[in-house]
């Protein structure tokens, strides 16, 4: 009989984040009072972060299959076929709560965790991105968090040696007390070289690999499943400390080990460390697991079973080993100066048994730990629909040029150079298009292929209309990948929301999932991995609903990619898509007029598919010279960005534009209609392209010509590109160099 020397009081249960009915479920399941170690194990397995108990019901509705999908959600990362026997392995995961409490370490370990997810599957990481969301710039804590998070992302990724090639950075007061750090990583492997977490075979050794176990991060996952309050700073000890150097060694050692054929199953230790990885491997294989904690390499003396089972020390793995290859496997880890210890074995009794000092500390049914986790159908109410707002009801600026300069220098619109120059975006030598474009592109292998990556979501749209906002996040990601000439293949989602126990928040979640699902289906971009982060809420104030989408696209010939910047003077600028000048929920309306009103732009998924396919075909046929999609800021911002990014012998290429007289000028300039692209073609080629589009039923307008050093809009005084560029590049470095007030 298992000994229990600690009283399991209601307070202790609550401290473990378990509700009374959840505790009752534990009692029913094991037929006795749990030990403290067992209570810890349950809290680790059944918290929101690990069990997806509020979201599972809805996640099941997402399309996750497709002809190229090899592994969908449920493994460490999704696996997608990219031809020639190659696969791309990718996932995105949040590290929001730790990053708010300790920005550098939180962000760094977020990057470390997602990289580990990728190489645990046998893939060498080749690209990283992050979607970062911070509080309002004027909030006293924002600068400190931006600085720490960016440094943490760079500190980890740069040392590990993966190029960080893209992402998003946004500011909003709704993230004042809950920043978002969503880290994406992608790796390459061979289709027949993928490793999974399902244990196979009884009596096989379970091996602990990597760094030693310490007391850091105990209850990290439980923290990530609760709201913050004014005392959140006291949670700092639950933040893990990362060591990218160890992770780099672990990467090399793991990949080397996999080549020996010694690995039967492997799982990284992420959230809830040893507990989650051991239970997952056993439960997936329908086996039991016996762990002898005395064999676990520890950094500190006197660690209890409870502490060891809940530690979230970084850079650790667990694997089931082929016993015939033990010596070979141990030698690999010795070479890389990493710990290698046999800490248990697989059993046939489907129990999870944990021993410390020869004493049984936990004895639980392994399948039920995961499968019987509570699952909630939380009550939800749909977000109220907002009426569309007419462009004529949104005031026009006094000076269009000044408004444009203001727009490109907004915190949400300015250049992110200050961020990406702190990330090594060139390492590995395969970066074909780095940060700053619609999608980043890397070269893959020696057959001339390429992969395109983009991270997208527009939280203000999601709040105004979760369904359309969810669709838009997918559509924009798909469009960005398309705009470089790639074919979108699949996506990962990182769903960040407030407290799901509130029906309004749950309604946002349900709506966004519906929109994401519809768009993924219509655009053939299944979700193959992902992560849910709930309770992003402080003192009752929730973040904006932020379902970030990370997409991956394939370029059969990487040289046929295209950039967003103008390449030559005298070229024709064509607008593709139905551009009506939609100002509801636009950046112009929010930041220049100072209002957020009206419905966000509708997403016509059929039009997205049609317009995008047309653009991609034109890119691949070599007919276009530059492509940029219309998104935040609208048409004129898109054109300005195409000019600011250009470089012709050291100077920038301007444009002369003729507005559409049928709509108000400011709506034409700043409307954020979807499924729209701005493209350039050599002057002589415009007519045939327009004609073909017409035949295909795709609206186009010739809107101008490239040339000069200014942006000239008919009827408006010319806007100097140099002024635009200075404003665009200036905001972030100026903001970050101001004295820190926190």
């Amino acid at each position, binding site marked *: 009989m298992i000994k229990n020397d600690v009283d399991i009081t209601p307070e202790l249960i609550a401290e473990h984040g378990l509700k009374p009915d959840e505790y009752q479920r534990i009692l029913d399941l094991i037929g006795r009072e749990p030990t403290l170690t067992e209570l810890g194990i349950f809290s680790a397995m059944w918290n929101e972060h690990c069990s997806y108990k509020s979201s599972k019901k809805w996640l099941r509705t997402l399309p996750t299959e497709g002809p190229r999908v090899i592994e969908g959600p449920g493994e460490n990362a999704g696996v997608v076929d990219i031809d020639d026997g190659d696969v791309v392995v990718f996932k995105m995961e949040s590290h929001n709560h730790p990053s708010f409490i300790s920005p550098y370490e939180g962000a760094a370990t977020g990057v470390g965790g997602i990289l580990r997810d990728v190489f645990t599957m046998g893939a060498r990481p080749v690209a990283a991105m992050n979607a970062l969301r911070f509080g309002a710039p004027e909030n006293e804590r924002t600068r400190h968090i931006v600085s720490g998070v960016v440094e943490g992302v760079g500190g980890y990724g*740069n*040392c590990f*040696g993966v190029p960080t090639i893209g992402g998003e950075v946004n500011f909003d007061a709704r993230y004042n007390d809950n920043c978002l750090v969503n880290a994406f990583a992608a790796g390459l492997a061979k289709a027949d070289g993928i490793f999974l977490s399902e244990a196979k075979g009884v009596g096989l050794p379970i091996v602990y690999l990597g760094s030693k176990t310490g007391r850091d991060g105990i209850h990290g996952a439980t923290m990530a499943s609760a709201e913050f309050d004014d005392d959140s700073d006291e949670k700092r000890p639950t933040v893990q400390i990362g060591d990218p150097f160890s992770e780099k060694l672990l990467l090399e050692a793991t990949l080397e080990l996999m080549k020996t054929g010694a690995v039967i199953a492997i799982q990284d230790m992420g959230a809830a460390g040893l507990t989650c990885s051991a239970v997952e491997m056993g439960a997936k294989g329908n086996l039991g697991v016996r762990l002898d904690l005395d064999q676990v390499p520890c950094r500190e003396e006197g660690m209890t079973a409870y502490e060891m089972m809940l530690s979230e020390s970084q850079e650790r793995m667990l694997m089931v080993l082929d016993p015939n290859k033990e010596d070979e496997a141990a030698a690999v880890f010795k070479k890389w*100066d990493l710990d290698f210890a046999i800490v248990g074995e697989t059993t046939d009794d489907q129990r999870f048994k944990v021993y410390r000092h020869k004493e049984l500390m936990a004895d639980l049914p392994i399948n039920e730990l995961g499968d019987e986790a509570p699952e909630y159908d939380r009550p939800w109410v749909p977000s109220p629909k907002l009426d569309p707002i007419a462009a004529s009801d949104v005031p026009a600026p006094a000076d269009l040029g000044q408004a444009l300069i203001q727009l490109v220098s907004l915190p949400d619109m300015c250049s992110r150079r200050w961020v990406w120059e702190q990330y090594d975006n*060139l*390492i*590995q030598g395969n970066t074909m298009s780095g940060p700053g474009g619609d999608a980043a592109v890397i*070269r893959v292998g020696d057959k001339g292929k390429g992969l395109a990556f983009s991270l997208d979501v527009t939280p203000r749209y999601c709040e105004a209309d979760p369904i359309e906002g969810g669709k838009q996040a997918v559509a924009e990601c798909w469009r960005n990948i398309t705009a470089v000439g790639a074919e979108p293949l699949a996506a990962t989602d990182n769903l960040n929301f407030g407290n799901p126990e509130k029906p309004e928040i749950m309604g946002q979640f349900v709506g966004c999932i519906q929109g994401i699902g519809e768009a993924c289906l219509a655009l053939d971009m299944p979700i193959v991995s992902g992560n849910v982060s709930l309770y992003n809420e402080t003192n009752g104030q929730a973040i904006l609903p932020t379902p970030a989408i990370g997409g991956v696209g394939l370029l059969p010939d990487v040289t046929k990619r295209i950039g967003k910047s103008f390449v030559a003077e005298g070229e024709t600028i064509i607008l593709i898509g139905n551009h009506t000048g939609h100002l509801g929920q636009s950046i112009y309306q929010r930041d220049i007029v100072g209002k957020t009103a009206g419905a966000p732009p509708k997403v016509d998924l059929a039009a997205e598919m049609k317009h995008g396919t047309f653009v991609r075909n034109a890119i691949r046929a070599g007919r276009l010279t530059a492509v940029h999609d219309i998104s935040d800021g609208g048409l004129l911002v898109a054109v300005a960005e195409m000019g600011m990014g250009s470089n012709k012998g050291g100077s920038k290429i301007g444009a002369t534009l003729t507005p559409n007289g049928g709509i108000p000028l400011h709506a034409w300039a700043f409307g954020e209609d979807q499924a729209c692209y701005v493209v350039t073609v050599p002057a002589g080629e415009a007519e045939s392209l327009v004609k073909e589009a017409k035949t295909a039923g795709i609206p186009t307008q010739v809107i101008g010509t490239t040339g000069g050093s200014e942006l000239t809009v008919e009827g408006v005084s010319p806007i100097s590109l140099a002024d635009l560029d200075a404003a665009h590049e200036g905001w972030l470095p100026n903001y970050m160099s101001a004295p820190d007030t926190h």
Partner: protein
Amino acid sequence: MKSAVIVFPGSNRERDMLYALEHISGHKPITVWHQETSLPDVDLIVLPGGFSYGDYLRTGAIAGLSPIMKAVKEKADKGVRVLGVCNGFQILTETGILPGALLRNAHLKFVCKEVKLEVATNKSVFTSAYSAGEIIRCPVAHHDGNYFADEDTLNRLDGDDRVAFRYTSETNPNGSIRNIAGVMNEQKNVLGMMPHPENLIEPAQGGTDGRGIFESALEWVA
């Protein structure tokens, strides 16, 4: 050209370097683990970029004490060409094979961007493919690339024509004294440089300005 790339725990641009060497020379380089104590007969030894030993203590400090470094020093003394890039440069200054030190960047941040380099001398086995004074493009990616040496050393480097590359003054990314991006030893058979020529060697990477360093070394062998 036979070449060897030394790999330390935490090296992370060794694959970039191996690719560049093979791509340009047509010969597969040898990879040498830091715990080896001897080096095969090669024409060029490369210490690649990365974060050897996690940059703990000081960049390059622990790697400088690795068993292989004794062998590298012996080879260098015998005139075998040694190229250290980024962390490799830091290791070469830590071991005293090259003078000076690489301090934290003046703005205290990691920096990854393209800079312009002036070829300060083309009278060397590493720069002969360039013309003197030529301006080339090259990326940098480092946290500790701020070159420093005392006045006497700097004057000697200049007087002996041992500065291989300088950042153009408007693109100095780290505060390096006299805009120094790369220096050579007295015999001019060892070059250390912070920028990464191995990441700009083919049109697909946006340019080939970095090739000259490898082509120079090749030409001197041939």
